[in-house]
């Protein structure tokens, strides 16, 4: 394989945002038919690298050569037409339009000046057949498809421009296990056809299953780039992290006592989760693992009364409760730190103080003055770096925004804290601050439920781990369970006592 000339060569790519360097001198070579894994921690620069190749971002320095010609794309469409297509993590599909209309969006085939719908459907079907996909109707509106099928439509869209290089950013992030197999098959078929694939994934198993070559990034710099056969999982993780995982996570604080059950669920369920049994004790941190779409967010939304449980029992401090609104939950001492901080956690164009007082003002208005006086202290204890409490939160970094969200909830003095992806998209320093806060709350007797997609975080922080699969709690595992066990429970392959876990 090494004899063939590379189809894509990137050399010395550099990029900085607002003076922060996110890529320094990164390069790699892609050969036809090669599946090239690109790995690294969150914030290592993988996405930036892909987006520079795709023409979303402009590079500060470096060269990109596609098929022997130096290129400089300023728009993803330009890159795609030159043969470098990208399947982004967020779907770029119109749910109300059909599969064929989406695949040919922006370059609809024409006959006699009018859109040739038959050709559009025919060619879409041909592409689907080529990938061996059955059951996706080119005339079906995209909203009727499953997430996996939508992912396929994205890939077909990339293929329809006759791409020689396809970049895929976390293509399996939203897929269930059997759907991942389908993606594998597609990737292999593409590679047989001589398409070079740059594959970004957090799931190391996929990287080893699929990739011929693995490039590792860390803190925006190239660590290594070489044949996958020369690496094993441990070595790869060591290169990605550069330090043992446990170094991040603070241990349980002295004086933390495991108290009475604060929150209990017995056979609880609604339209999205089913048959959940859960116990959350004072001073305890329970981690919730599971793939995207497994019902983790739906579980905390049900606990918080956003989409209430419709069956089963929920007990708070031993007394049965029925949470039917967020307001009621706040009043009873539950806090939910949502997954999407910008859309659901903050009023972006309001000040730090306004955001921190948001819940207090609306639910416990009488305590506003008291909390306002305490605010500077709370913010500084969380190490919020801002130009004062009057700065609009949209100008803060992700980590500081998250701390404002935490401050907002701490003000309510919650007894149960639900955290949904509390460290997503924030820097390491802020992550550690969040971890320390969780430990401190646990010591004060707060019961904590933390959803996380990052297994090291779940393992490093949890006293117990609940794994969700297909809307049900498929397993409850002890602290420090290994990644393999958690993952197999998350994908439904774990068997306990010879019986398939649900």
């Amino acid at each position: 394989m090494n004899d063939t000339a590379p189809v894509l060569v990137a050399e010395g790519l550099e990029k900085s945002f607002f003076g922060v360097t996110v890529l320094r001198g990164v390069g790699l070579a892609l050969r036809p038919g090669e599946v090239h894994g690109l790995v690294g921690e969150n914030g290592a620069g993988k996405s930036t690298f892909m987006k520079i190749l795709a023409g979303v971002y402009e590079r500060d320095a470096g060269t990109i050569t596609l098929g022997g010609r130096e290129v400089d794309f300023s728009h993803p469409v330009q890159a795609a037409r030159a043969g470098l297509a990208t399947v982004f993590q967020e779907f770029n599909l119109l749910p109300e339009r059909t599969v064929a209309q989406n695949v040919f969006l922006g370059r609809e085939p024409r006959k006699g000046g009018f859109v040739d719908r038959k050709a559009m459907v025919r060619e879409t079907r041909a592409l689907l057949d080529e990938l061996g996909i059955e059951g996706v109707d080119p005339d079906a509106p995209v909203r009727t498809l499953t997430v996996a099928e939508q992912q396929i439509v994205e890939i077909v869209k990339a293929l329809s421009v006759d791409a020689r290089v396809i970049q895929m950013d976390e293509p399996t992030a939203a897929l269930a296990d059997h759907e991942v197999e389908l993606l594998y098959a597609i990737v292999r078929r593409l590679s047989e056809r001589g398409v070079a694939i740059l594959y970004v994934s957090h799931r190391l198993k996929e990287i080893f299953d699929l990739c011929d070559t693995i490039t590792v990034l860390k803190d925006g710099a190239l660590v290594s780039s070489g044949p996958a056969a020369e690496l094993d999982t441990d070595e790869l993780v060591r290169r990605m992290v550069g330090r043992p995982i446990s170094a991040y996570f603070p241990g349980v604080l002295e004086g933390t006592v495991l108290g009475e059950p604060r929150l209990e669920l017995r056979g609880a369920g609604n339209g999205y989760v089913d048959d959940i049994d859960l116990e959350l004790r004072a001073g305890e941190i329970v981690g919730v693992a599971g793939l995207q779409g497994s019902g983790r967010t739906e579980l905390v939304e049900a606990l918080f009364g956003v989409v209430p449980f419709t069956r089963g029992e929920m007990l708070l401090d031993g007394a049965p409760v029925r949470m039917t609104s967020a307001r009621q939950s706040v009043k009873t001492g539950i806090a939910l730190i949502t997954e999407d901080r910008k859309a659901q956690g903050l009023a972006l164009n309001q000040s730090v103080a306004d955001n921190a007082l948001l819940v207090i003002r609306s639910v416990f208005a009488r305590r506003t003055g008291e909390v306002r006086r305490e605010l500077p202290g709370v913010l500084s204890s969380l190490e919020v770096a801002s130009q004062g409490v009057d700065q609009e939160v949209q100008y803060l970094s992700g980590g500081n925004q998250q701390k404002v969200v935490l401050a907002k909830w701490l003000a309510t003095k919650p007894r149960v804290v639900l955290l949904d992806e509390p460290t997503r998209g924030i820097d390491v320093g802020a992550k550690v601050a969040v971890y320390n806060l969780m430990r401190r709350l646990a010591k004060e007797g707060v019961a904590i439920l933390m959803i996380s997609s990052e297994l090291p975080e779940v393992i490093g922080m949890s006293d117990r781990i609940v794994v969700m699969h297909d809307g049900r709690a498929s397993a409850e595992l002890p602290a420090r369970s290994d990644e393999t066990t958690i993952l197999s429970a998350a994908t439904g392959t774990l068997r306990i006592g010879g019986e398939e876990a649900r």
Partner: protein
Amino acid sequence: MSTATTTSAPPRRPRRRRLDASLIVGIALVGVIVIGAILVATVGRNFFSAGNIRDILTGMSVLGFVAIGQTFVILCASLDLSVPYVVSLSSLIAADLMAGNPANIPVAVLAVLVVAALIGLANGLIVTKLRVNGFIATLGTGLIIKGYLDTNYKGTSGEVPWEFQLIGATGVGPVPVSTLIMLAVAVAGAFFLARTRTGNHMFAVGGNEQVARLSGIRTARPLIIAHMLCSITAALAGLLLASRLGVGSPTVGTQGGYDLLSIAAVVLGGTLLLGGRGSIWGTIGGVAIFAVVDNVMSVMQVNPFLKDVVRGIVIVAAVAVYTARVVERRRPRFTGSGSDRAPESVEGGGGIAGGGTGAGNAGIGTPGVERRQEEQA
């Protein structure tokens, strides 16, 4: 072991086909006609008489023109509030230029269309280039036109020759010529949306501008063209009104309330106010529902204030029905009735299936299928 896992979700799932929005409008229209016919019959009149049908169709045509144009604009996630003023202005330009002379008809019609196209172009440019929200942009241009009309016209003006008045007065059987023209424009509009790139791109720009841009669409173009088409159809409505009145009038557009009524008809027709989904035929259905409701109330001699109450209820009810369908973005996994659990769980789940408004109907089978496969495994 690994084979057992793949059964957790069946590979072939019965696909839920949601009722097409224009089909719902069609059903609603038939329902309204049936109820209307019965009500009219109770006062001893025939809803389906040629005269009554002609009345309904005549009532449809002016609003129909305006609503067709409004559909384009709303599909692109914009709005056009300047239409009533364009309608008035068009009637005046037409009547003034015709000045009672049939030879002037072609020039007058052409002038009206050109002026309307320019107004639409201005709207489109303000929305796309100056990035002013369509609501505000067209409110502004509408007020500018209103100012011009108020300053220059104290009342009706011009004279429409008899030959042009025929358009508004004649018909083929019970079907007025004006309705036929309106329907022809609707056919052209539906074809434009389905079979031209610009038409296709309107859905994309309205549905998700980011996706449209990332797909290489020049997003300004469809929006500008939508605004131009909207002003042009408003001008057609103005021409029709001039033909009916025999003169131009500076208030004929505002009296008709065509801005909000056309938006209401479009939304009633299943087009999403946020853009990206909708159809011309749905809009025509919406216009027809309004026309039938109006007609029934006129025949029954209902208090005119009650008319507006009924209109208002129809609009709110229609949108409530559509949003109920839209809100349920995530598909419920557990619908309860497929559950093998205790009876109380069925009761609890039943509420969810109902809340899904149709979403649950076909989906109910799914968990059952899953469960059976799991048991086999």
